[in-house]
């Protein structure tokens, strides 16, 4: 078990003019025993990155190291990793027992009795000991998934690599497996890289989240960091459900003018100093309904039980808000809201970089938020709450 | 990566070498048929110096083949036996005799008719099995399926007797009819027709179509590619039939296999003529194959896909 380092990884498919760059310039360090989630929309390169770590794809340039061993040139079978595929990829003609033992049989010199014993142990750990004699096609989706997991666990590898393993399960099973996976990983303490497109899943699992888009790493940090302090508009929009509300506003000194009746007076104007327009972001839960605030036209009200989702319009802009369950504005009517300046997000209208994020009222020093940074670089002492993010994480050195 | 790429390269080399070897071995006989047909027998049947390049005796060999009395490979113009004499000009109207069919024409003619008719029959039967319910459907289908295992050529004995009774010996129908209801064809058609959405047929029914129209206007057009594949299977089947035609056909109505057999078993074997015959039999189909590869391949695969 060791940490995994990706150093300026680039993966191109095809060659010459038709080449597609799937992964570009990724620098990532995954700590020993960490559960890292790679998340992003379809086609962002997360699965490709995972496959590069696995060795199923060769990188076009860059280096991958496990601990201090350079594995870039090694084939998958020489890297001592285990992978759980989205479709489980169980060997259909072998029963569960042989599926589990297969990896050991091939890559170690353990005697058959020893292998059997380990198979039994892992099966017990996952609760599938009764299925050992059955073939994969006789098992349910959830059971197959456990077998796939078992196959990975039994190898005791340097790292677990998981490619959307839960996406083929139904919702209930999925959340159940989610917690099981986390407990398992915690107990086994194996470095894990987990790929998913579901940001809720990413937020729930994972010590850290790495958000990718268009082949590049947007941000790496804990769930909280990524949520409260996104590095750019993409991350802010991708993380969080319902999505953050973002719209354009003109800047006039300290005053922002947005769609509809939106006017806001900033107390801290540093972020928007040199700009004429800015993108304003407000998370749905930060919209508070007040009597005398900015006017919203109510469209739809979705009662969720513990809260209500309000879909409204601010001029031409659609806005989503999470409000208390007792508040039930009628569609067609108007309400008004207010938002705390501390909760306001500001993004550069051209680059999308965040100019101001929610950090307990703290404002970072100037527009120096660079994409691809890891965690929060704060030389400003942070206030309460953003605990673990203060560990400065070593940048990988070229 | 150095180590890896070198091993990879070795494997690649071996793989491609192997394939190349196979291709060469495959092509040599075909090339040889063609070459031998253009040479005089003495030229290629020499253990010390066979010529490997095409010669110029093709026409000569062909002429010799054509001139043989007992085997007519390619047809000749026949005698016009019925005509109306209008003085300066006469009009023949017994067209059947205009062209005495040789073996090649016979084979093409027979295989063509067989293919068309069998396609019709098999598709209808396949349609019935796929889309309709009727009593005894299962047993009948299994019965038809069972005959697939049997080498159907072995049932020629009763066929021969039957044909003698009906008086169909030495007629083309004798070899067309027996396997018109081709079990393989019926099986394939059924398999393929099952994929026609029932909803399509239902809505056509509601629009007022008759059952036959369902077959003709919906099922058949949808099955175009399967029909193409099947027609190749059927054509080749009939084209290659040897045993039964050997039994039942007589002079004047030989198909290619029987004709060639005559050449080989003759008193004096003229290999150059035989090669001409072989070339004429094989080359057209090759050309067809090259153009219709996809259909050929799907025809081959059609029989093997398990559901």
């Amino acid at each position, binding site marked *: 078990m060791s940490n995994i380092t990706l150093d300026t990884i680039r993966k191109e498919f095809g060659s010459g003019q038709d080449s597609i760059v799937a992964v570009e310039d990724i620098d990532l360090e995954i700590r020993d025993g960490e559960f890292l989630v790679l998340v992003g929309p379809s086609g962002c390169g997360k699965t490709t990155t995972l496959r590069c770590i696995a060795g*199923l794809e060769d990188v076009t340039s860059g280096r991958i190291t496990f601990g201090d061993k350079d594995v870039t040139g090694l084939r*998958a*079978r020489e890297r001592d990793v285990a992978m759980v*595929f989205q*479709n489980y990829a169980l*060997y*259909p003609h*072998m029963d569960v027992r042989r599926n589990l033992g297969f*990896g050991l049989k*091939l890559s170690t010199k353990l005697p058959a009795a020893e292998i059997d014993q380990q198979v039994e142990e892992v099966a017990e750990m996952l609760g599938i000991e009764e299925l050992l004699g059955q073939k994969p096609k006789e098992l349910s989706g959830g059971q197959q998934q456990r077998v796939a997991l078992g196959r990975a666990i039994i190898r005791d590898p340097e790292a677990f690599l998981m490619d959307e393993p839960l996406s083929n399960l139904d919702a209930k099973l999925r959340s159940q497996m989610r917690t099981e996976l986390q407990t398992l990983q915690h107990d086994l303490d194996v470095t894990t890289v987990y790929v998913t497109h579901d940001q809720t899943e990413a937020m729930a699992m994972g010590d850290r989240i790495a958000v990718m888009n268009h082949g590049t790493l947007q941000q790496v940090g804990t769930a909280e960091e990524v949520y409260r302090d996104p590095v750019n508009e993409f991350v802010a929009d991708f993380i969080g459900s319902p999505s953050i509300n973002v719209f354009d506003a003109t800047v006039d000194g300290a005053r922002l003018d947005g769609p509809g009746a939106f006017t806001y007076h900033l107390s801290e104007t540093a972020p928007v100093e040199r700009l004429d327009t800015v993108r304003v972001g407000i998370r749905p839960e930060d919209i508070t309904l007040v009597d005398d605030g900015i006017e919203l036209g109510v469209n739809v009200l979705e009662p969720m039980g513990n809260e209500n989702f309000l879909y409204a319009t601010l001029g031409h802009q659609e806005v989503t808000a999470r409000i208390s369950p007792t508040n039930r504005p009628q569609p067609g009517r108007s309400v008004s809201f207010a938002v705390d300046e501390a909760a306001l997000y500001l993004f550069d209208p051209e680059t999308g970089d965040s100019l101001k994020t929610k950090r307990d009222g703290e404002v970072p020093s100037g527009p120096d938020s660079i994409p691809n940074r890891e965690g929060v670089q704060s030389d400003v002492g942070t206030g309460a709450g953003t605990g673990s993010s203060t560990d400065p994480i070593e940048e990988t050195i070229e | 990566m150095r180590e890896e790429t070198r091993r990879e390269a070795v494997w690649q080399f071996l*793989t*491609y070498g*192997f*394939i190349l070897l*196979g291709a060469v071995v*495959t*092509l*040599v*006989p075909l090339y040889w048929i063609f070459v031998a047909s253009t040479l005089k027998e003495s030229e290629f049947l*020499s*253990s010390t110096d*066979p010529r490997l390049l095409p010669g110029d005796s093709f026409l000569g060999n062909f002429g010799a083949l054509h001139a043989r009395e007992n085997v007519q490979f390619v047809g000749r113009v026949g005698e016009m036996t019925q005509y109306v004499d209008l003085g300066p000009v006469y009009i023949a109207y017994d067209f059947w005799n205009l062209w005495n069919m040789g073996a090649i024409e016979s084979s093409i003619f027979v295989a063509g008719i067989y293919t068309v008719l069998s396609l019709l029959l098999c598709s*209808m*039967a396949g349609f*019935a099995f796929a889309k309709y319910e*009727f009593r005894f*459907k299962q047993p009948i289908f299994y019965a038809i399926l069972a005959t697939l295992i049997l*080498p*159907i*050529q072995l*049932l020629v004995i*009763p*066929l*021969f007797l039957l044909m003698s*009774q009906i008086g169909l010996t030495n007629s083309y129908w004798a070899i067309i009819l027996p*396997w*018109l*209801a081709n*079990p393989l064809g019926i099986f394939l058609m059924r398999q393929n027709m099952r994929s026609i959405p029932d909803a399509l047929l239902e809505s056509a029914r509601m629009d007022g179509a*008759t*059952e036959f129209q369902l077959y003709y206007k919906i099922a058949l057009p949808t099955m175009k590619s399967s029909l193409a594949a099947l027609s190749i299977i059927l054509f*080749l089947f009939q084209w*290659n039939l040897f*045993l039964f035609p*050997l039994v039942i056909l007589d002079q004047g109505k030989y198909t290619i*296999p029987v004709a*060639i057999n005559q050449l*080989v*078993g003759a008193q004096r*074997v003229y290999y150059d003529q*035989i*090669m001409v*015959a*072989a070339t004429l039999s*094989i080359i057209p*189909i090759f050309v067809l*194959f090259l153009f219709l*590869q996809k259909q*050929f391949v799907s025809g*081959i695969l059609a029989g093997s896909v398990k559901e």
Partner: protein
Amino acid sequence: MATRDSLPGPDPSVRDRLRFARQSVGELVPTPGEGIVGYVFLLPAFVLFGVFLAFPIIYTFYLSFFRFNGVGNDTLLWIETGFFEYKLTSIADLEFVGLANYTAMFSDSLFHQALFNTTFILVVQVPLMIALALLFAVALDASFVRLRGVFRTVLALPVSANLVAYSTVFLLMMQDAGLVNYVLTAVGLPAIPWLTSSFWSRMTIVGAVTWRWTGYNMIILLAGLQNIPQQLYEAAEIDGATRIQKFRYVTVPQLRPVLLFVFVTSTIGTFKLFSEPVIINGGGAPLDSTITIVQYIYQAAFIDFRLGYASALTYVLIAVVSVLSAIQLNVGGESDA
């Protein structure tokens, strides 16, 4: 719909009128009921099947217990009206001999020889051909897509060759003075008496049949190979499998049903061998060493005119083929319908 039958506008064209006529004729034909329609479609095929396939199967069995004495002449049925006459004569003149035909087989040495030849070819040719087909399929599977198409076409060409025609080429090539011997002597090996030695003449047939059918089987195996999900190979790679191990643990098991199919069909095909031995034998190969079962049946039936005996032989052959197929299916297959 009444108002729709006569719309204002241009008069119906000729084509339209034909269509109307066709449709009204169609309406006259009674729509058959639910269970009947299927039969209607099936009818022509079924009739032909019954007469030409089902009947012969049964009749062959029946015949095997008789001795054939000539084409039938006895009138079975005679209908005569003023201007119409129909006479149904019996098909054959038969004499009941019980199991005599079957027992005769035991002492028929030529039959035994034919059996031996066919088995020899089966045992040598089928595994050889399937192994080759598999190797080619694997090789093609690993090649670039473009080359794959070309080579697949080339290797599959023999399939389209006429059986009899291609046999003649082999006959020619294997002559003592033929191409193959020329090549052999050119590289220093001795010339082989392909057509005169009993062993080598069988090998000639093995060679010819292999040449003809390897491409065919290769296509089927290739399709099977390409159906194997890539992820299984990846999982195996991650589990530590080498190339050969992947072949053994992923490829072969996944190919099993296809391999089985190919084995069974090739076996059945071997027992049907007729064209090749006839031609090659006709060109001088010793009859005894190359005669196959079907060839022998042909000889018994249509040269010796011992139809009863030939029928019995046919049935024995059918039995052997069925048993072999059943064994292969049992041994080779897992039970999935």
